[in-house]
C-alpha cells in the first residue's frame, strides 16, 4: 500500500485534480479569441502539413498510405506523452506558492499535468475521427472494430505516463538537470519508437530492441487500432500492461521517498 500511496492520494483528491485540469484548460484558452477552437485548429493544421509534405516531398512506404493519416494518430499520441512529461517536470515549480502555502497533496500537480494534456488529446480526437472517416469514404482504408482497442491502449498509456510523471516531477525538485535529461530522452525516444514508421520498417534482426523500449508497444498498438485496423498481438498487450505497472510502481515509490522534500524545496 505504501508504495502506491501517491496513487491512492491522487484518487482521494480527484475532484481537485479535475478542477486543476479545468483551470489549466480555461486559463490556456481564455486569452485567445478562438478559445477551445484551438484544440481543433492545431491538429487540423498539423494534419494539413503532413498531408502536403508527404504527398509532394517524400514518397512513403507502400504499406502506410495514406501516410498523413498513419502519422496523424501516432504524432497526436506522442504529443500527449512528451508534453505531459515535460509539464510534469515543471509541475512543482509552476505551483510553488500552492505547495508552500497550502496543505495540498503534491501528487495532484503531476496528475493535473497529465490530465490537462490528456484533455487536449481527447479534444483532438474528433479531428482524427473525421480524417479516418474521410479517407475511408474515399476507399483508402477500411476501418474495423479494432478501432475499439484504441481506448484501452490509451488507458494503459495514461497509467504509464502518470507513473513517469510522478518520477519526473519528484526528481525535478531535487535535481536541476531533469528537464534536460527528459527532453533529450524524449527526442531520442521519438525516433527509436515506431511513431513515424510502422514496426515492420524495423529490420527483423534489430526488432528485439523494441522490447527494451517502453514506448514501442503503445505506438504499435496505436497504429494497429487506428490505421491498420488489425488485432493487437497478445505479446504487445502484455508488454503494455507490464510497462504501465513498472512505470507506476517505480514512479510512485520514488515520489513517496522524495515527497517530504517537495514542499520544502519546490
Amino acid at each position, binding site marked *: 500500500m505504501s508504495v502506491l500511496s501517491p496513487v491512492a492520494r491522487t484518487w482521494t*483528491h480527484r475532484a481537485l485534480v479535475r478542477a486543476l485540469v479545468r*483551470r489549466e484548460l480555461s486559463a490556456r484558452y481564455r486569452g485567445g479569441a478562438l478559445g477551445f477552437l484551438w484544440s481543433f485548429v492545431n491538429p487540423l493544421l498539423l494534419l494539413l502539413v503532413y498531408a502536403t509534405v508527404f504527398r509532394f516531398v517524400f514518397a512513403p512506404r507502400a504499406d502506410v498510405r495514406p501516410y498523413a493519416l498513419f502519422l496523424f494518430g501516432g504524432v497526436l499520441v506522442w504529443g500527449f506523452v512528451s508534453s505531459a512529461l515535460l509539464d510534469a517536470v515543471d509541475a512543482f515549480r509552476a505551483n510553488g506558492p500552492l505547495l508552500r502555502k497550502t496543505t495540498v497533496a503534491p501528487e495532484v500537480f503531476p496528475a493535473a499535468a497529465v490530465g490537462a494534456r490528456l484533455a487536449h488529446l481527447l479534444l483532438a480526437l474528433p479531428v482524427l475521427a473525421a480524417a479516418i472517416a474521410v479517407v475511408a469514404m474515399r476507399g483508402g482504408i477500411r476501418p474495423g472494430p479494432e478501432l475499439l482497442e484504441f481506448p484501452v491502449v490509451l488507458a494503459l498509456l495514461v497509467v504509464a505516463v502518470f507513473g513517469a510523471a510522478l518520477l519526473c516531477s519528484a526528481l525535478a525538485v531535487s535535481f536541476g538537470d531533469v528537464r534536460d*535529461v527528459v527532453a533529450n530522452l524524449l527526442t531520442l525516444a521519438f525516433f527509436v519508437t515506431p511513431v513515424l514508421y510502422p514496426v515492420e520498417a524495423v529490420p527483423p534482426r534489430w526488432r528485439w530492441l523494441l522490447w527494451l523500449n517502453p514506448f514501442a508497444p503503445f505506438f504499435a498498438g496505436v497504429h494497429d487500432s487506428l490505421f491498420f485496423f488489425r488485432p493487437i498481438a497478445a505479446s504487445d498487450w502484455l508488454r503494455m500492461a507490464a510497462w504501465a505497472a513498472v512505470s507506476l510502481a517505480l514512479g510512485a515509490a520514488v515520489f513517496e521517498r522524495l515527497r517530504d522534500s517537495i514542499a520544502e524545496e519546490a
Partner: protein
Amino acid sequence: MSAPPTPAVPAVVSVSAVSKVFRRYARRGRGSGSLKSALLAGLGAGGRGTAANGVVALSDVSFEVAPGETLGVIGPNGSGKSTLLKLLAGILRPTRGRVEVRGRLAALLELGAGFHPEISGRENVEINGLLLGLTRAQIAERFDAIVRFAGVEEFLDAPVKTYSSGMAVRLGFAIAAASEPDVFLVDEVLAVGDEAFAHRALERFADFERAGKTLLFVSHDLNLVTERCRRAIWLEGGRIAADGPAADTVARYREHVAATEGRRRLREAGAGGRVGSGAATIESVRVLDRDGRPAGRLKRGEPAAIEMTVRAREPLADFVFGFQVSTVPGAVVFGSNTLLDGHAPDSFSGAATVSLAIPSVDLAPGVYALDAAVHARSGAPYDYWRDALRFEVTAHAASAGVWSPPRRWSTAGSVRWRQ
C-alpha cells in the same frame, strides 16, 4: 513557564520536542544537485540535511494547545514562526520530534495562495475550497456566503487578475473561513486588508472562539495579540523564549526588543560632529553612576553625574561649559550651561574637569544622547561635540514620555487594589 490551561481536556495541537533543519542550499531554490551525480551515488545522495550542514529553523519546541484556545505566536522575522505554522499544517515535516493535530485543520498562510490570475473568481473559489479540503457539494452550498463575505458579487466571472488586492484578500479569507476548521492557522494576513475587512475578519475569529474552535495566529501586531489571545508564545531564534498569558509574553518580548534596540543605539554613539574654533577642546566626556564610576547605563531615580575633561589652548577669560541631553530621535530633554546656572567666567587655563551632578535621574527608560560644549558667552563655540556619547536609562516600570518623576498613587473612596 508554559500554561497548559486545563489538563483534563486533551490537547488539540501538541508539539513535542520539535526541531526543523533546512538544507542550506534548499533556500536558494532547487536544482543545485544534479541527477547525474545522484544516480552515480545512489538515490540517497539527495537526502535529508543534518544539523551540521543545515539551517536550524526551530529547535526543541514543545507546547500544547487546548480546544477553544486562541494562541498568538510572536517574535522577530526569521525566528521560526512561519516554519512552525507550516509544520502544524503538515506542509513540512519535523526533522526531530512530533507534531499532532486532532481534527480538521485549515491553514491560511498566504491569502489567495491558490488563486490563478487568469481564471474567474468563481473557478478560483472552487479550487481554493478543494485545496482546503472541502467537497464540491460543500463549496456549492457555501458559495453564496463566501461571495457575500468577500463582497465580490459583480466580479465573480472576471479573471482574478482584474481584482484589487483587497478583493483577492477578502475572497481568500472568506473561503478559508468557510471551511469551518477545528484548528485554524493564520499567518499575518490581517495586515493586508483595509480596516473594514480586518474588523469583519476579527469578528469571524471571535465566532470561531465561541464555537470552541482553536485558532493559532502569527502576528507582528502585538496589540492585536494582547487583545485577541489569552495565551501567546514568543519565538526567538527558533526556540520558545516565553509561553504564557498573552499580556505577559508580549510585555517580555517588548522589553527584549527595547533592550536590543537600545544596545544598537548605544553602539551608534559618537557619530555626531564637532564644531568650534579650537581655543579649547573637550578631551573626554563620561556619565558616572551613583558610585561615581563611568557607566553606560543609569537607573531611574538614582543619582548620577555628567563629566567632561576640557583643555584650553591659551588662557581664556570668556568661557561657558554646557551639556545637553536629547532623545535619540533628537528631541531635547534637558540643556543647561555654567552661565545659565549662574557661574560667571573669570579665567580658565590648562586642563579642567567639569562635572554636573544630578541628584536623581528622572528620565523614562530609554536611550539618550549627550552633547557637550565649551563656548564663549556669545555662544560662539570653542568646541561643540554633538552626540558625544549615549547612555541608557533603565527602570522597573515603563512609562510614557521622557519625564519619569518620583511618584506615588493614592486614592480616596472605595477603591481597592489586589495585593
